């Protein structure tokens, strides 16, 4: 497996973008600037980054209610994302979808998803499309540990396995399904074990180590592009915040939280880059400052954008099927 220094530098920028976007969203939500619900990806940055660095622009991803990191890593524009969070008409969903429905078909982002486990079957559809059209595309399907108890998980892995579809199932095991710890919602520890039931490879990696995730995703994606079928990658990580902003997360063990936060993915990657001479501290500080500016620009764009018009409330809710067919 080869990875260039340029790719590693890009990964650092992606991780910082996710971290700063989420931190800003956390503050803006607390200050009442962002309406609706917000599920933050803080602490899980290495996963979206490590996986998406291996994807091409025309590859697909499916996401979750905790999807900002996936969208940013796949190349989503933070201005349109921020505007969507602010409920503005310039957002990805024209301000009507909010945090949990951001999509961009041009980037292969088949949508964040408010329904737990719903992305898994969409990913199978995308994989079937890739195989049917005989392209070299793949679909990376992100989901959490809680969703692996849903029927969709089992249906999706079964079907992807039977048809050898180019789908990479990426389980972000952050150890909680809403407020329920993994040890209380399933009798297994390693979700990767479930791959064996569908006859596909299942591996568990340190989800707070961007290079470990990159490496596993690289092999799984290469396998998928060669027509060898799906893989289940379980990335062990930790949700820093509550399930949603406003959740006090009293169900978390403070000691466990402290131990996981000490395995902080962005800091670890920064140390790795510096130790190996990929980037100097100054170069990384410069990236941090550039991303700070990007976030400021995104916030300004969101703040200055208009709200959707009341009369447009019914627009874009349903596809104009006849029009879609006619265009095709």
């Amino acid at each position, binding site marked *: 497996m080869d990875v260039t220094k340029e790719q590693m530098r890009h990964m650092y920028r992606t991780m910082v973008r996710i971290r700063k976007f989420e931190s800003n969203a956390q503050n803006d939500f607390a200050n009442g600037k962002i309406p609706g619900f917000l599920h933050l990806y803080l602490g899980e940055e290495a996963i979206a980054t490590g996986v998406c660095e291996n994807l091409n622009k025309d590859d697909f991803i499916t996401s979750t209610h905790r999807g900002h990191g996936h969208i940013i890593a796949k190349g989503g524009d933070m201005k349109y994302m921020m505007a969507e969070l602010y409920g503005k008409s310039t957002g990805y969903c024209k301000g009507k979808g909010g945090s949990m429905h951001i999509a961009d078909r041009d980037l292969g982002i088949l949508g964040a998803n408010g329904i737990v486990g719903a992305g898994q079957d969409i990913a199978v559809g995308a994989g079937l499309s890739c195989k049917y059209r005989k392209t070299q595309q793949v679909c990376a399907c992100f989901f959490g540990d809680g969703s692996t108890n849903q029927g969709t998980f089992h249906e999706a892995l079964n079907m992807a396995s039977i048809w050898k579809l180019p789908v990479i199932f990426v389980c972000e095991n952050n150890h909680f399904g809403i407020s329920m710890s993994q040890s209380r919602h399933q009798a297994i*520890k390693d979700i990767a074990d479930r791959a*064996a039931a569908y006859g596909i490879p299942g*591996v568990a990696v340190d989800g707070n*180590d961007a*290079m470990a995730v990159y*490496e*596993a995703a690289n092999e799984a994606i290469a396998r998928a592009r060669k027509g060898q079928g799906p893989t289940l990658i379980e990335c062990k990580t930790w949700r820093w915040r509550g399930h949603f902003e406003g959740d006090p997360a009293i169900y978390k063990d403070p000691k466990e939280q402290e131990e996981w936060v000490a395995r902080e993915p962005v800091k670890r990657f920064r140390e790795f880059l510096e130790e190996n001479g990929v980037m100097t501290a100054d170069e990384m500080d410069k990236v941090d400052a550039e991303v700070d500016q990007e976030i400021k620009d995104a916030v300004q764009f969101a703040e200055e954008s208009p709200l959707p018009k009341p009369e447009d409330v019914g627009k874009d809710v349903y596809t104009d099927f006849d029009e879609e067919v006619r265009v095709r």
Partner: protein
Amino acid sequence: MSSIGIIANPASGKDIRRLVSYATTIDNQEKVNIVKRIVLAAQSVGVDKIYFMPDSFQFGWVVIDDLELDGNLTASCEVLQIPYMACAEDTTRTAAWMEEHSLGCVVVLGGDGTSRAAAKGLKDVPLLPVSTGTNNVYPEYTEGTVAGMAAGIAAGADDPAEFCLRDKRIEVSVDGEFRDIALVDAVVSDDLWVGSRAIWDVKKIEHIVAARSHPASIGFSAAAGCLEVIRPEDDRALALHLCGDDETKAVRKIKAPVAAGILSPVDIQEIRELGIGEAYSFTAEHNCMLALDGEREIRVREGQEVSFRLTRNGPLRVNIEKTLEKAVEHGLFNRD
């Protein structure tokens, strides 16, 4: 009165080798079954106290609950109340506790890496490693019942050294400072990061030092094994300097099972034998990674001095067959 300790690694058997080769998958439920068989067999040969390492899967509690419900548990069992962090240090720390409390034997379920972690905490308490991983050279593939019998007999023996071997180990130093050990092999890889830990790509490997080598094993020690067999009892090791991309330097060209199901070409430019106390040393020509018993562990920077010294300071490992044969000789299975 005899006691054993059980260390089961919930993380073994599910690393990236399932993706890059055709490695075995073993889930934790199956490990629970193995541990149950170990417990049942050990208590049947006289073990009356069993200690478990605490872990995130809670092997100890699951086994105790199940066997108690079945009415089959006679030994007193205890899950140690020591902190765990779901990392290799848990194993080392638990093994050290078991050494300090002079248990009769420590059974370790996992791969080479788990055995290595346990070996770091053990000195004179016998170690019985049971394979649940892939590319395993150090732990034996053995039935849990058989492992439990051997552990129980070793734990009750007056002189376990009668059927144990003090193993070799490779002591790893960087710039003169002792850093770690390997029980099977120490490998220098062209990688820059620990990443998914496992190593499998022979093109990245520059040096291999194998404390034991056999073609009937899997991994980089098997590359040495395809040149020459070195058994655990032999007071020597084999050090290989590989060719990298330049096969014109090769003095030997072989193929070897470096990963499950995969025989890869290995070109070697230098072969050296090491005796006990001898070291294989080199200066790193660029940043690289030291992989110990198949797992990337130590980053080395260009210009650093690396030394792999062969010693007999390894753990006292139970020879399962020899233990059971001795038990037959001593009539330990007789009921009258």
